[in-house]
């Protein structure tokens, strides 16, 4: 247990956290009937991916060797954040529209595109 606290953390730990976040996001998307819940799941998934990018780009976690993504990782993380913000805005607008037209936020009711 002490070992866990004294050992420096590596890339794998970050990846594990990101995996947990990702799976949580996935579960959110898969189980929430509320459209906003689905949106939150998407945010979680994006965050997990972001954490991956940052971890791979971090010099600290790679012990000073800059074989990883370096600055690219951070830049991509930045872009992902921005795109996520944009996506959130768009998705929310769609959700509101859906709410206006269907008077509900239940995604199971949005099945007009059913084959």
């Amino acid at each position, binding site marked *: 247990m002490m070992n866990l606290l004294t050992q420096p953390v590596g890339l794998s730990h970050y990846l594990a956290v990101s995996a947990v976040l990702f799976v949580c996001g996935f579960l959110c998307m898969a189980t929430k009937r509320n459209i906003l819940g689905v949106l939150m799941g998407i945010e979680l998934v994006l965050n997990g991916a972001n954490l991956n990018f940052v971890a791979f780009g971090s010099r600290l976690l790679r012990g000073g060797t800059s074989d990883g993504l370096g600055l690219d990782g951070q830049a991509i993380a930045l872009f992902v954040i921005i795109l996520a913000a944009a996506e959130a805005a768009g998705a929310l607008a769609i959700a509101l529209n859906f709410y206006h037209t269907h008077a509900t936020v239940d995604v199971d009711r949005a099945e007009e595109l059913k*084959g």
Partner: protein
Amino acid sequence: MTANSNLIPSLLGLAWLLPLASFVLIVFFGPRMGKAGKHAALVATAAIATAFALSFAALVLWLLQNPLSAPNPGGHAAERVAAESAKALSGEWYALGVFGPLRIGIGYYIDSLTLAMFCMVTFVSSCIHVYSIGYMHEELSEVVDPLAPLANGQPLRRRGRFCRFFQYLSLFCFSMLGLVLAGNVAMVFVFWELVGICSYLLIGFYRERTSASNAGNKAFIVNRVGDFGMIIGMMALWTGMGTLSFGDYRAVDTAGHRVTLPGIFSQVRPAETKHQLQVPDGMVKLASRPQIERIVLAHRRDTRTATAAIAGQLRGWRSQGLGYGLLVVAGLGIFCGCVGKSAQFPLHLWLPDAMEGPTPVSALIHAATMVAAGVYLVGRFYPVFTPEVLLVVAIVGCITLFLAASIALTATDIKRVLAYSTVSQLGYMMLALGLGGWLAGILHLFTHACFKSLLFLCSGSVIHACGTNEMPRMGGLLKKMPYTAITMLVGCLAIAGAGVPLLAVGFSGFYSKDLIVAQALSFRASNPPFGGLFFYVAVIGAGMTACYIFRMWYLTFAGEPRDEHIHHHAHESPKVMTVPLVILATLSVVAAWNLFGTGYGLQPLLEQARPVEQSIAHGVFLPGVTMPFEHEAHVPQIHTPAELVAFLAALIGFVLATAFYGVRKWDPEDARRTFAGIHRFLVHKWWFDELYSFALVRPVLRISGWVAACDQRGIDWLIDHLAISVAAVARFDDWFDRLFVDRLVNLVAQWTYAVGLRLRRLQTGNVRQYVMWLAVGTVMLFVVMSLYWNLALAAGM
């Protein structure tokens, strides 16, 4: 140029276009004009009557501008010996196309001949239009035509074609006036064909009758033969002179200057030779091409000197007679067309058959105007004709004159008698023209138009009353139809040339026939060895004319009725028909008279248009032929004997007819039996139909039958079998298509459809399910990838 001189073409142009307007109106609105198109007749008649008024106004204007030359005391027209060209107005209204020096357009060439023709055509047409209103009234209601039986033996019943008739008449008037007015040969040709079409349409007016449609076809086809020659003549003219225009015309040359280019007449009769016939430069150059080639080769460096050298040589070549042949060809070609249209000797067969048309049509087209168009054209082209061509014209006219007159002697159909008489009189005109008697021929054209239309209208009146054409079934109609009988008698006297010799007073035919016979006598004097032949034929023709025409009159009107039924039903025609008869009868008497006490009349008027006579009228190919001056025939030494001989011949003919048919002193049957061979020969029209049928028609039919057989047995067989094989291939294709291609396509479509139906279930529209599938896919991807990843790692180790 005064304002008036511009007015004459406008007046005539208007007179020319009025019948066209009437035609167009009747085409579009005819059936709606009154009951069954009754008022179409009024439209057509009004148009042609207005045209006559306009033509007459133009004639008066012309006379004001060009006063007739002083008459001589003898009553005959003054001769214009002075070497001046005929007065004429020529111009162009609209140029259809300009091809180098050749201009094709709608132009006019107006001299006193044109004006006289205009007045004559429109006047006769007006009379005949009025007459037709009465004659064609049956066409207003449904017509039962027993001459056109249906397959079941019932007579044909059809709708009346009253307005159609007047529509054709208007079109014909337009075409005929256009032909007379035309300023160039191309336009002449166009209207030439147009009158042919009208003739065809009107001959076949009762088109349900086989004989009528055959006659229409015959007229059209026979005319084509002549027109072919005319096209050759036109091409010769164009090649040799570069223009088809009669008169001079203004044009803009390549340098931009306004120049006056010489027309046909100026080229053939240039002013520098005092209007004597001269082979045009173009024809000389064409004929002397080898010499020109040599000159051009010699002057290779300088085209200007070469041109000058050629110009210097032209006179010499011309005197050698180079190019003369082309001029002869041009003249013969044009005459060929006239032979067809005027039903002259080899092509005379169509005119008698053309009597299948309604009688007013026969009067207007096949007696007075259209068939005279050939004579008119010969008169118009007179300056171009060389003595050789004129001799051919004379020979053709001579043969036609005798041939047709002899057939007319035995014909029993009243209209056929008149038809052969027409052919014969046209032969007279041709004879006169060919012998140098321009005025004689043209004057006869006019007088003939008057009395022949009168005769035809009278015969129409008779036919209208009797319902038959056959003279042996008539007789004794004088009491029943006094107007018709008297007017017809006037016509007969006119055509026979009745008059008082030495006093020079007579019916119109008297003057023209005298002129012709005198010209023939004059020709005999100039050409001793053979020239007499024409004179004898002309005299015999005069006798035959009197004989057949009075035979016709006697058979129709005199004696006892031969068919009581017909006689009983016969009646005088209504006023609308008899009034034109009276008018035309008056005209038949006075047409050739000068106005009392003055020299004004038809002859001096026509005299104005006379082309300049040639001083040396010897041909190059036939130097023995001399064309006498026409005024030479007017000297008493020639004129008086001719007059007397012609009168005597006509008298003999009249006496013979009277003896046989008038007083029945002799029985015609006796004569028939005595001259059985000749009679049969004449009844069969000299076997011409049989000859042509044997020599031309039947070979053509046989060849075409043979070709048709080739077509049917050979080519059709081939094509049929080709089609059958194609059909077989197509059937196989069809089978293959259905069995394989279609089935394959259907299979693919069905399969796709089924797969789509299955896959459709996956598309639930449930977002969460999609996410689930996404995740499953990712996991599967990982699993699959890790397999290879491990392998790759293992390989890399």
